[in-house]
């Protein structure tokens, strides 16, 4: 009996996954996005194996091989320290992905929770306090606050992630707040209240599942934005520190050597664009998927 219901459950999940994939794959661009993202993630994880010169991403200098244009040994050329740019880019993906992943993981849970509480308890003083604080953080363009915090601390990827997380959560609170406020007057919520369900249960079992699609969509699209933010911070000198191969850092360093040693800046720039494009296409695909499902 039990095994029957388990196998039915599995086959039902598989069926809905197949359907979802079918819907998702209708737009070829979304598939391209997925391929790019998966490709980059795999490359980042297995960088030491994919990179032709993995040690160049760390402590390495060889003036004899410096400033070489793209060739068969060094597909993307070498920089002024003699390091292989392709290898450094592959390791650089690690920093970008870490930035996006860490920031989103840190930010989504507190942001969404606060938004749920504030939205459901609309009119209560807790709501006012939460939303006032959110407003303060939303009062300035995101980059400025991140810069201010970054500049106080010693520049590093870790501190940049903390700074960006610190001012990213309000967006999720605002989003969830809007969703929760409109949902709290729905029938199923009122029904749960009538039967005496506790507030946490209502929040997490009734309201949250219905907010998921916009939140997930935003998360996917946010990856691209956070990666751009991270590379901008590195470009200014507040993110990944040299000699670590952060993509934004590499563009900033390479910009000095344009136009002669163009490859030092151009390839990392293209890498950033590729990465962000991947997440954007993927995010668009997820959004289409979610909205179609609702319909």
């Amino acid at each position, binding site marked *: 009996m039990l095994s029957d219901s388990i196998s039915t459950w599995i086959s039902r999940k598989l069926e809905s996954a197949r359907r979802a994939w079918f819907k998702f794959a209708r737009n070829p661009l979304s598939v391209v996005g997925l391929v790019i993202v998966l490709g980059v993630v795999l490359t980042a994880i297995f960088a030491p194996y994919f990179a032709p010169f993995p040690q160049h991403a760390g*402590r390495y*200098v060889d*003036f004899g091989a410096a400033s070489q244009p793209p060739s068969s040994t060094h597909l993307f050329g070498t920089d*002024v*320290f003699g390091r292989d740019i392709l290898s450094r880019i592959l390791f650089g993906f690690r920093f970008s992905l870490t930035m996006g992943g860490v920031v989103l993981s840190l930010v989504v849970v507190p942001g969404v929770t606060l938004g749920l509480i504030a939205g459901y308890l609309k009119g209560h003083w807790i709501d006012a306090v939460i939303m006032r604080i959110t407003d303060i953080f939303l009062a300035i363009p995101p980059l400025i606050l991140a810069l201010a915090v970054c500049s106080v601390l010693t520049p590093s990827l870790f501190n940049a992630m903390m700074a960006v997380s610190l001012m990213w959560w309000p967006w999720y609170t605002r989003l969830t707040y809007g969703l929760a406020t409109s949902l709290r007057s729905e029938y199923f919520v009122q029904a749960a209240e009538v039967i005496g369900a506790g507030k946490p249960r209502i929040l997490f079992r009734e309201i949250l599942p219905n907010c998921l699609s916009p939140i997930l969509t935003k998360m996917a699209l946010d990856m691209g934005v956070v990666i751009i933010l991270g590379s901008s911070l590195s470009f200014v000198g507040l993110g990944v520190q040299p*000699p670590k191969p952060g993509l934004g850092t590499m563009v900033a360093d390479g910009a*000095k*050597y*344009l*136009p002669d040693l163009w490859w030092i800046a151009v390839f990392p720039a293209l890498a950033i664009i590729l990465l962000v494009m991947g997440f954007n296409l993927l995010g668009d695909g997820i959004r289409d998927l979610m909205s179609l499902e609702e319909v």
Partner: protein
Amino acid sequence: MGVKGYVAVFLAILASLLICVLAMASTEESVVRTTWAWPTYIDPAVGSDYSSSVAFCNLYDPLLMPTADGGMDPWVAESWIVSEDGLKYTFTIRQGITFHDGSELLAEDVAFSVERLLAIGEGYAYLFYGKVESVNALDSTTVELHLLEPFGPLPYALSRLYVVNKDLVLANLEDDGPYGEHGDYGKKFLLTNDAGSGAYVLEEFSVSDHLTALLFPDYWAYVSPRAPERIEMLGTTEAITVRTMMAQRQLDISDQWQTSEGLNALDKMEGVDVASFFDGSEMYLMLNNTKPPLDDVHVRRALAWVLDYDAVANSVFPGSEVAVGPIPQILPGHNEDLMPYRQDLDKAQQELAASSYADTIADYTMEIHWVSEVPDQEKLALLFQSNCAQIGIDIEIVKTPWLTMIDQAALPETTPHIATIIVAPHYAEAGAMLETRYHSDNTGSWEQMEWLQDSTIDSLIDDALGTPDTAIRFQKYRDIQQRLFELAPAVFMIDKVEKHAFQSYLTIPTFTSPIPVMGYVFQFRLMELDLDQKAAAIGN
């Protein structure tokens, strides 16, 4: 209106802009443009970095003028007499020098400048602080300077005393200030105005990005017949901007912070040359003597033996020379008998083995901080890191903005283990370097990040500085250098060359025989601008 109309208007705007652009192509005016690392402070009591010093050298006149061979020429002061005890200097002030506003330069202006410099205490004041007791103008052409103790190199230091127009400053005081009856001592006024008598008159000063000045027709000293009528100092060192402007002949001399790759590219440009000269500065790896394991002289010497000096002098900073001791070789008072360090891994291992950290050295990770505004220093840091790895020493690289470096230098706890710093002497004599670099009174500065604090060295330096006789003083300097060499408080890396790309239609005599005092190489009145050649170059 419709799509077509919209597009038409847009194209019309674009076209008219292009026409105006072509009309405003660069002209062959008599102007020399240069790029600098900003900020610049044109108040001679406030500024002290390179671009500020260049401004002083052109807008103001110093009491004495340094020469290419390291001597001092009379300038505002025509002559001086020193008292027997070395405590009183009497200067005779030259007559016939006019300030930019037309008034005459008198002894009271000189006295006022000294008082103002000491009261404000910024910029080059530290050269005189604690040494000068008082100053007074005896009459319109005589100034008396009283010292607290004999100060042998005083004439050299006076190349940093710039004479300010007393009446003009007093007429522009802000009453609300910390200097009693002198209000703010004219600091606000001199932030954006000039009160000088120099070869150029300030025309426009934008705090954030540029300075322009015009040739002063009534200047008393020599002005080359083809000196530029106008000079512009632009506050940017962006590689691509420098490149573009050089190519279009809109920039005449580049700053010294371009990368070697950038300079190579500029050199290849037609009509552009690269000048390279020793500016009297030396680049050090300053070792924080208070932080273990650097508190052991053997570890410090090991680091001195492990660095690949040749790679530094040939690959990282091509054109420079390996240093010989703590003082740059072109500075008067340098000890030529010292042996330069060269890479010797065996000696490095021996020194390491002789230290108290022989067995535990692997437990220490030392940080090397390089200055982010000097990109080539990153190469140096990576090189040093790989050199040290060969004897088992672990190095971490930290990119540090200049202002953070200054901040970190203030306390021994915050000073990094190793810092790559360039130090230039404040006046053209070894004593200047020794005092700023190794005297305990000057700790907490970016020029002395070793925290040596050795009382023997202190008293030797004080004694040397108090010796008015040059030959004896220089002998004392040599002795101090020998001791410092053995103490190895820093790694004495290279005598740095200063490199500037410049247009070949500009002749700059000071590039070929440079004056070893920062800023004086850029006395624009000595330069010669060939306008015909410039017009031809623009045409290309």
